[in-house]
């Protein structure tokens, strides 16, 4: 099996600050891969580059074997560029799809600081995520020309909610749910976009130990059920070590280690990065 996601020399620079530096990552299909690192290491920035929120300053991102995002510094950005491999993609055309196009390709995400739509119910939050793939246009939708499609969207949404154990809350405002369920809802919403690759940004943040333990099983379950590839950022080491097939560790934007959980656990640089260096 090939790679679902492939990052090649991705650098993201804001002004003079390099947030992600020359990052290369492979996420093989159907695997659960983790990206870890101390606070401010650039993990979420990497996610934002993959999902099109930011355009990387330099580098290539492939999805399912096809180039999806590509950029290289030019002009003023080239002069201030501090990263490496500035010339590597200089002759390739720039690719900068918008986040919704990337979602359309089959990448869905959750957010570190939960971003549910606050005036909408739990049901609507999931239903909106079905909008992109619905076979409709603004006329057929407005004049109810395609009721079957609307019904299909509603039914599938209901199925998802039942599966996530959220059906009891379906008419409540999304923001009125307890924290753990809001995270669940974010995952359900992401699944509603029918992704092939799921990016989870600190899915266990704010969860209690029991919820965290359940989360590991849950991630494996949805991977099987939806034939997903999962790429996650996490701070809970128990969860990461439990669930991941392979781990990338970054600090100050650069990779410091990679390997299967046991290797990473015993890596000196990783321990230093997390605990600080003691001479």
């Amino acid at each position, binding site marked *: 099996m090939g790679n679902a996601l492939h990052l090649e020399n991705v650098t993201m620079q*804001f002004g003079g600050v390099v947030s992600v530096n020359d990052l290369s990552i492979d996420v093989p299909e159907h695997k659960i891969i983790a990206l870890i690192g101390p606070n401010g290491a650039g993990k979420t920035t990497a996610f934002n580059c993959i999902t099109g929120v930011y355009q990387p300053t330099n580098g290539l991102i492939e999805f399912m074997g096809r180039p999806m995002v590509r950029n290289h510094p030019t002009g003023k950005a080239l002069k201030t560029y501090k990263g490496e491999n500035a010339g590597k993609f200089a002759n390739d055309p720039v690719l900068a799809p918008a986040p919704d196009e990337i979602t359309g390709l089959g990448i869905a995400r959750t957010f570190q600081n939960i971003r549910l739509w606050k005036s909408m119910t739990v049901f609507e939050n999931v239903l909106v995520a079905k909008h992109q793939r619905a076979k409709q246009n603004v006329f057929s939708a407005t004049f109810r020309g395609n009721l079957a499609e609307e019904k299909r969207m509603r039914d599938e949404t209901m199925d998802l909610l039942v599966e996530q154990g959220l059906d009891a809350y379906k008419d409540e405002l999304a923001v009125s749910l307890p924290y753990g369920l809001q995270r669940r809802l974010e995952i359900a919403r992401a699944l509603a976009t029918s992704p092939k690759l799921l990016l989870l940004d600190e899915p266990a943040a704010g969860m209690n130990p029991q919820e965290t333990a359940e989360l590991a099983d849950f991630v494996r379950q949805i991977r099987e059920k939806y034939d997903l590839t999962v790429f996650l950022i996490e701070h809970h080491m128990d969860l990461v070590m439990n669930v991941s097939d392979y781990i990338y560790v970054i600090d100050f934007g650069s990779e410091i280690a990679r390997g299967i959980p046991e290797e990473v656990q015993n890596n000196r640089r990783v321990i230093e990065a997390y605990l600080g260096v003691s001479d």
Partner: protein
Amino acid sequence: MEYVISVLLSGISVGGQYALIAIGYTLVYGILRLINFAHGDVFMVAGLMGIYFTATLPVTASVPLVIFLTVVLGFTIERAAYKPLRGAPRMSVMISAIGVSYLLQNTATYVTGGQPMTYPVIPFLSDTVNVAGTQTKWVVIITPFLVLILVFALSLLIGRTKVGMAMRAVSKDFETSRLMGIKINSVISVTFIIGSALAAVGSVLFFTNYPAITPTAGAMPGLKAFVAAVFGGIGSIPGAVIGAFLIGICETIIKGLPSSWDVSVFSDAFTFALLIIILIFKPQGLFGEAATDKV
């Protein structure tokens, strides 16, 4: 040639008057991120007060009184209409500003009975003077110099005093400044006081040159001044001043074009066209800083 000089002169003076209003916009936007739609109307009210006071008081007394009362008005508007909405969505505050503008215009209509009011002749400012063969009013000559002096004083205030430092800090980062113990509300009040005082001075200069004041007389100069502030880079005082002079000059040139072309109707539209072009190509303006959003 004389014609060109007269157009240029009046352009510079109109620009100077816009500059005085634009500073009020740019300061307030810099700190509250609010387009203070009522600012142009404060300017109009200052003009009306000028009319009513000079009817009974000597000019030397009424001008300071106008400035003082305009400052009180600006301060009151901020306390009554904007302060309660701190923390509310930006749209609510802007709607409140539009509401204040509506209130001021309607009150002015009520007080004046809707009639255009003639601005009094202010001695010296209204006297004519001969510059390079063209007749003009003293106010036209004085405006740019007065503006430069006031801007200089303002930049000293902002650059050298404690309150100026607080203003700069708040405009950089509202929340952090609050955490650092800066009294946000007093800083905002000072901003409104400065803006209103300058608008009051601007009103004396502006309306001396115009035949009459109507309740909506402040709206257009206000919007133009805002455009000037955007043009120069919102939050930047020199930017606002340069933008205002440019707009003033362009506008008088358009108005001065041969009447057979019949383009004077576009003197206001031009300003907005300029605004849209800037927003598209250089949204941070000439001297503004670009901002990035965090996700």
